[in-house]
C-alpha cells in the first residue's frame, strides 16, 4: 500500500496542479498554446528533406568503419550514378545517337556535384582503346579526333569500342545503348557542402531525361543518388495520403460521436500535435528522411485515438448531467492516468529504437517520441480545455443517454470471453495461432529478397531502369568491395598481387559471386597486352619491373595514391541475405588465414557490402529491440497497475500480435530490414494503449465488486466503442501507405495495419479471457456496494 502511495502521489499531485491550472486559467492556456503553435508552424514550414548516404548504413559496424576510414581512397565507389542512353530503334552507331550521347555527356559534366575528372563515357578522353600491333601497343580515345559523324567515322568508333574492352561496361552487350558513369561528391571537396540529392535528381530529370528523351532515344538512370531523389519525391505523394487520412478520419469521427465539436476539436488538436512535432524536429536540427516522414501519420493517428477517449468520457459525464466545463474537468481527471501512461509507454517504447545503431532509425525514434510527447500536451491538456468551452452538443448527449437506457447492448456478445468456457476457447485458439505463427515466422529472412532498389517498387521507373541496365550490361549493380590494405607502396608487389589473385580465385567457390576485378586483373591483362595480347601471358609477373610496367596506367578506383590500398570489387548475382552471408563468411575465412602485418583484407564497401553490414546489425538488433520495448512497456504497466497478472493480461495479446506479424512478414516475402525493423516496436508501443484503457476502466468496476462479466460489459459500453474506433483510426492512418510508391512505406503500412487491428482484437477478446483465468479467485472488492 505504501508502494502504491509512493508511485501515485507524484502523479496525483501533478494531476491536481495541472487540473487547477488548466481549468482555472483556461484562457491563458489556450493563448499559450496558440502562441506556441504559431511559432512552431513557422519552424515546421522550414523543415527540409535530409537524406544522407551514411545515415542509412549502420553507424558502428566494422565494415562501415573500414569504409569510412578509407573512403577518400575509394574513388567513385560510394556514390555514383549511371545514365544509359538507349537507341530504341537501331543501334548506337548512328550520327544522331552519337551526337545525343555527346551532348548528354557534356550536360552531365556541368551538373554540380559531379566528379568531373572521373566522369566516364565513350565520349570522355579517359576512355581509350588499345591494341597490339607488330610495332607494339597503339591506342587512342574511343571517339577519334577525326570523328565527323560519317559512316566511316562510325565504323571506326565501332572498331575502337571493340578494342577498348568497354562492351558490357560503357557500351551494352547488344550495342543498343551506352552508359555514362557519373561519380559524385558526397561532399564538395572545396566548399564542403553536402550533396542535395533531391536537387541533383531533379537536375538529372530536367536536364537529361526530359531534355533528351524523344522518339528513338530513351534514357535510363540508376544509382544511389537517384534512389534518394526518387524517395524524396515519392514523399510528396505521402502528403496527399495525409490529406485523405484526415478527411476519412473526420467523417468517421463525426459518425461515431455525433458531435460537431467533438469531431473538430480532437482533429484540430491532433493537427496541432503534428505541427508541433515537425516544428520541434526542425528546431532540434533534424530533417525529414523517407522514414521519419511517416511519423506525422502515426502522431496524427495516436493523437486522434486518445482524443476520442477523452471526448467519449466527456460525453458520458455530460450525459450524467455535468455542464460542459465540469464534464471536461471530470474527464480530464478520469483519463489522466491511463492516458498519460499509454502515451508514455508509446514514447518510451519508441525511444528504445535508439539501441539500433543505424542513424536513420535513431532519427525515427526521436521523431516519434517527440511526437508522442507533444500529444501529451495537445490531446491530454489542450483538448479538455477546448472541449470545456465548446461542449459536445446535445445530439451526442442524447445518444449517450439512449445507450445507457438500452437494456441489451450488442457489446454483451463479447462478454462470453469472460466466462470460463469462452475464455478457455479463446485462449486455445490464441495458442493455436501462436504455434502457427511461430512455425511460419521461422521463414523470416533478414535483408532483401528482391533485386533492384528495395526502397522502390518493382515497377517503379528506377527499378525498370535498373533492370534494363542489368540485362544489357555485364556488370551487376550489386557490388561488394573488399579493401586490401598493405604497407605504403606495397600494393603492387608480387606478394600482394598474387595473394589478391588467389583471393579472387577462391571467390569462385562462393555461390552468388558473379565475378570480381582488382589491380591484379589490371596487371595480368596489361602484362598480356604488353605481350601482344597473348592469353598465355595473363599472369602476374615475378619481375617487379614488369609489374610496374603493367600498372603504368591504372583506372581510377583500383588503388589509392600512396599504393597502400587496393580494392577488390566483387560483383554479386544479387544482394540476398544468404548470398551476402556466404560471401562475408568466405572472406572472413580467407582473411583470417592470410591477414598479416603486411597485408590485410578488410570488409567492406559497395552497396552489397553495406547491406551485409546492415543485415548483421539488424539480426542482432531485432532481438535487442524487442527485449527493450517489451521490458519498458511491461514495467510501465506494472507501475500503473501494480499487479503482475494484470501486466500479463495486457502484454500477452501484444506478444501474440508481434509473433503473427513476423509470420505475416515471412509469408509476404518481406524481409527484416532497416524499414521493417521498427515496425514491431511501433506496433507494441502503440498497441498497448488499448489494453491500458480497457483495463483501467475495467478495474473501476472490479473494485466496486462487480463480477468480471458485468464489469467487462460496463467497460465495453463506455469505452468499448472508443477502443474500436481507436483501432479504426490507427489503421486508417497507416493503411494508405500501402499505396505509396516507396516500397518500404507500403510494407510498413501493411504490417502496421495488421498489428493495429490484431492488437485491438487481442485487447477486446484475449484480455478479458486472460483476466478470467488469472483472477480465478474472487477478488475481494474494496467496498461492497450496498
Amino acid at each position: 500500500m505504501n508502494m502504491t502511495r509512493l508511485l501515485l502521489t507524484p502523479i496525483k499531485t501533478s494531476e491536481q496542479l495541472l487540473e487547477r491550472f488548466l481549468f482555472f486559467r483556461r484562457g491563458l492556456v489556450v493563448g499559450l498554446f496558440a502562441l506556441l503553435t504559431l511559432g512552431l508552424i513557422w519552424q515546421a514550414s522550414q523543415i527540409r528533406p535530409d537524406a544522407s548516404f551514411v545515415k542509412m548504413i549502420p553507424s558502428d559496424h566494422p565494415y562501415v568503419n573500414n569504409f569510412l576510414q578509407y573512403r577518400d581512397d575509394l574513388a567513385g565507389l560510394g556514390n555514383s550514378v549511371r545514365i544509359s542512353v538507349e537507341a530504341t530503334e537501331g543501334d548506337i552507331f548512328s550520327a544522331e545517337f552519337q551526337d545525343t550521347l555527346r551532348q548528354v555527356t557534356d550536360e552531365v559534366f556541368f551538373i554540380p556535384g559531379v566528379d568531373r575528372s572521373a566522369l566516364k563515357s565513350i565520349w570522355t578522353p579517359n576512355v581509350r582503346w588499345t591494341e597490339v600491333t607488330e610495332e607494339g601497343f597503339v591506342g587512342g580515345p574511343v571517339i577519334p579526333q577525326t570523328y565527323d559523324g560519317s559512316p566511316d567515322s562510325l565504323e571506326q568508333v565501332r572498331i575502337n569500342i571493340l578494342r577498348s574492352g568497354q562492351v558490357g561496361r560503357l557500351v551494352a552487350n547488344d550495342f543498343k545503348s551506352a552508359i555514362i558513369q557519373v561519380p559524385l561528391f558526397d561532399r564538395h571537396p572545396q566548399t564542403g557542402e553536402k550533396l542535395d540529392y533531391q536537387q541533383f535528381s531533379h537536375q538529372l530529370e530536367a536536364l537529361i531525361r526530359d531534355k533528351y528523351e524523344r522518339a528513338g532515344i530513351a534514357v535510363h538512370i540508376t544509382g544511389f543518388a537517384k534512389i534518394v531523389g526518387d524517395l524524396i519525391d515519392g514523399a510528396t505523394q505521402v502528403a496527399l495520403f495525409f490529406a485523405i487520412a484526415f478527411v476519412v478520419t473526420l467523417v468517421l469521427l463525426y459518425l461515431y460521436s455525433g458531435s460537431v465539436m467533438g469531431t473538430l476539436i480532437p482533429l484540430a488538436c491532433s493537427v496541432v500535435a503534428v505541427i508541433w512535432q515537425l516544428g520541434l524536429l526542425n528546431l532540434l536540427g533534424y530533417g525529414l528522411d523517407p522514414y521519419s516522414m511517416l511519423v506525422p501519420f502515426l502522431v496524427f493517428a495516436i493523437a486522434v485515438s486518445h482524443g476520442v477517449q477523452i471526448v467519449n468520457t466527456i460525453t458520458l459525464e455530460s450525459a450524467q448531467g455535468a455542464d460542459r466545463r465540469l464534464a471536461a474537468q471530470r474527464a480530464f481527471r478520469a483519463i489522466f492516468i491511463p492516458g498519460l501512461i499509454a502515451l508514455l509507454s508509446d514514447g518510451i517504447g519508441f525511444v528504445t529504437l535508439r539501441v539500433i545503431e543505424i542513424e536513420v532509425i535513431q532519427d525515427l525514434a526521436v521523431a516519434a517520441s517527440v511526437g508522442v510527447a507533444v500529444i501529451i500536451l495537445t490531446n491530454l491538456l489542450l483538448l479538455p480545455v477546448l472541449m470545456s468551452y465548446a461542449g459536445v452538443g446535445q445530439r451526442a448527449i442524447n445518444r449517450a443517454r439512449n445507450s445507457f437506457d438500452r437494456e441489451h447492448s450488442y457489446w454483451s456478445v463479447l462478454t462470453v470471453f469472460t466466462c470460463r468456457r469462452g475464455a478457455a476457447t479463446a485462449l486455445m485458439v490464441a495458442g493455436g495461432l501462436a504455434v502457427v505463427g511461430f512455425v511460419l515466422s521461422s521463414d523470416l529472412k533478414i535483408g532483401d529478397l528482391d533485386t533492384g532498389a528495395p526502397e522502390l517498387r518493382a515497377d517503379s521507373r528506377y527499378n525498370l531502369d535498373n533492370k534494363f541496365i542489368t540485362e544489357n550490361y555485364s556488370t551487376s549493380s550489386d557490388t561488394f568491395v573488399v579493401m586490401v590494405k598493405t604497407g605504403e607502396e606495397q600494393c603492387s608487389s608480387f606478394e600482394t598481387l598474387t595473394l589478391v589473385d588467389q583471393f579472387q580465385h577462391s571467390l569462385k567457390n562462393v555461390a552468388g559471386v558473379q565475378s570480381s576485378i582488382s589491380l591484379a586483373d589490371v596487371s595480368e591483362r596489361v602484362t598480356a597486352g604488353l605481350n601482344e595480347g597473348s592469353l598465355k601471358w595473363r599472369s602476374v609477373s615475378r619481375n617487379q619491373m614488369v609489374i610496374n610496367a603493367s600498372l603504368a596506367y591504372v583506372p581510377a578506383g583500383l588503388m589509392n595514391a600512396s599504393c597502400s590500398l587496393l580494392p577488390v570489387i566483387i560483383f554479386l548475382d544479387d544482394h540476398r541475405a544468404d548470398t551476402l552471408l556466404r560471401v562475408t563468411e568466405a572472406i572472413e575465412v580467407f582473411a583470417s588465414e592470410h591477414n598479416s602485418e603486411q597485408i590485410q583484407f578488410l570488409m567492406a564497401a559497395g552497396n552489397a557490402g553495406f547491406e551485409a553490414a546492415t543485415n548483421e546489425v539488424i539480426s542482432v538488433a531485432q532481438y535487442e529491440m524487442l527485449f527493450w520495448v517489451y521490458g519498458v512497456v511491461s514495467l510501465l504497466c506494472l507501475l500503473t497497475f501494480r499487479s503482475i497478472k494484470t501486466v500479463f493480461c495486457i502484454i500477452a495479446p501484444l506478444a501474440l500480435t508481434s509473433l503473427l506479424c513476423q509470420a505475416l512478414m515471412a509469408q509476404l516475402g518481406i524481409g527484416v530490414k532497416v524499414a521493417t525493423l521498427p515496425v514491431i516496436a511501433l506496433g507494441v508501443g502503440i498497441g498497448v494503449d488499448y489494453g491500458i484503457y480497457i483495463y483501467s476502466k475495467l478495474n473501476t468496476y472490479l473494485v466496486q465488486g462487480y463480477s468480471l462479466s458485468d464489469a467487462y460489459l460496463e467497460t465495453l459500453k463506455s469505452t468499448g466503442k472508443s477502443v474500436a474506433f481507436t483501432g479504426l483510426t490507427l489503421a486508417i492512418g497507416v493503411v494508405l501507405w500501402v499505396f505509396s510508391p516507396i516500397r518500404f512505406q507500403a510494407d510498413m503500412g501493411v504490417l502496421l495495419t495488421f498489428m493495429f487491428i490484431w492488437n485491438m482484437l487481442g485487447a477486446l477478446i484475449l484480455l478479458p479471457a486472460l483476466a478470467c483465468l488469472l483472477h480465478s479467485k474472487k477478488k475481494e472488492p474494496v467496498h461492497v456496494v450496498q
Partner: protein
Amino acid sequence: MITETNIIIGSPMNKSSTSILLTICCLLSGIVFSFPALAASGDRLERPSLVLHTRTDQIVASNVLLLDIALAGSRLVAVGEQGAVLLSDDAGYSWRQAKVPSSVLLTAVNFVDDQNGWAVGHDGVVLRTEDGGESWHLQIDGEGINQNRIETLEQALAGLDQSSELEGTDRETLEYALEDAQFAAEDGASTPLLDVWFANRDLGYIAGAYGMLLQTRDGGQSWQSMDHLIPNPDRFHLNAIQATTDGSLFLAGEAGLLIKSDEQHTAWQVIESPYEGSFFAMQESKGLYLMGLRGHLFRSDSGTGWTPIKVSTTSSINAAVTDSHGQLILLGQGGLLLQQQDTAFVPLAASTRTSFSSGVVLGQQLILVGEAGVTRVPLDANVTQATVPSDQGGRS
C-alpha cells in the same frame, strides 16, 4: 595410418605405450594434414591448386581461364589459371578437377598416350602425370631451370674449344647468355613456359619466353637447356613447337621468328619468315600452317616457302585444329572462330567476345578453351551456325 594404429593396439602392449603411440600418430597426421594449410599461404608455385566446386552438371568453371586442352586417350584434359587441370571423360559434358601441387597459370599440356602427359606454365613449372591426369607432380620449376641454364652455359664455355656441336656460336654470345641467365636467376622462378611437346615417353621439348628451350630424354626427370643451341640471338619468345610428319621440329615465336630443326633435333636453322609479327601457333593438315598476330595465316608445303592466306579478321589467331574432313578451324582473340570452307574461312558459330586459346576435336564436337573456360561447339557435316553455350562472366 588407421590400419597401422589398429594393429598396434591389437598387440598386447600396456596402456601407456598405446596412448603414446596414438599421440604420436595423431601428431603426425596433424602435421601431414596441416601441410596444405601451411602451404596454402605460401608462394603460388608451392601452393596446391584450389579445388573448384562444381557449379552445374554441364560445364564447370566457366569463369576460369583455360589455355590449352589435350586428349589423353578419350579423356579431355584442360589446363589454365591458378593451376587448374580439368578432366572430362564424357566428351566435355562434365568435368572434374585433378590434384595439382601448384597454383600458377598453366599454358600448355601434351599427352603421348592415355596415361603420360606433361603440363607447363608460368614460373617455369613443369608438371608430369602418369595416371592420365588424375594426379600431377612437379618435375622442375623456374629456379631449377635457371640453375640448369647457368650450369649448361658454364659447361659450354668451358668446353668451347672442343666440341663442334656448337655451330655458329662464339664465346661472346655464350658469355652474354650466361650473364642473362645469372640475371634471370636473381629474379627467381620467373620464366613463363609457353608450349610443350613430347615425341614419346622419354623425349620431349619445352618452349618458353625469352628464347627458352628445354629438352629431356628421360621423360622429364632431367632437363637440358638448349637456348644457346638455337639461332635466336634476340631471345625472342618461343611460342609454339610443332612436330611435322617428317620428323623435324618447328619453333614459331615472337617477331616472326621461325626455326626448323633436322630430324635428330641437333641442327637448328632460321627459316625466312613471311611476317615480322609474332606467330602463336602452327598446325599440320595437308600442308603446314603458320598463324599469329592480327589474323595472319600462312601455308607452306615443306616449311620453307610460305604463302599468305587471306582471313578476314585482324584478331590474333591463337591456334588451329583440323576437323574430320581435314578442314582447318581457326580460333583466336575476341571470339574468333572460323572454319575453312574451300578457300574461304567462315564463322563457325554465333559470335562471342571471349577469346579462345586452344581446342580439340572429339567426335562431332569441337571443345574449345579460353577466357570463358570450356566451350563446346557441335560440328555438323554441313557447317551451320551452331549455338555456343557460352557463359558470360570471367574476369570482367
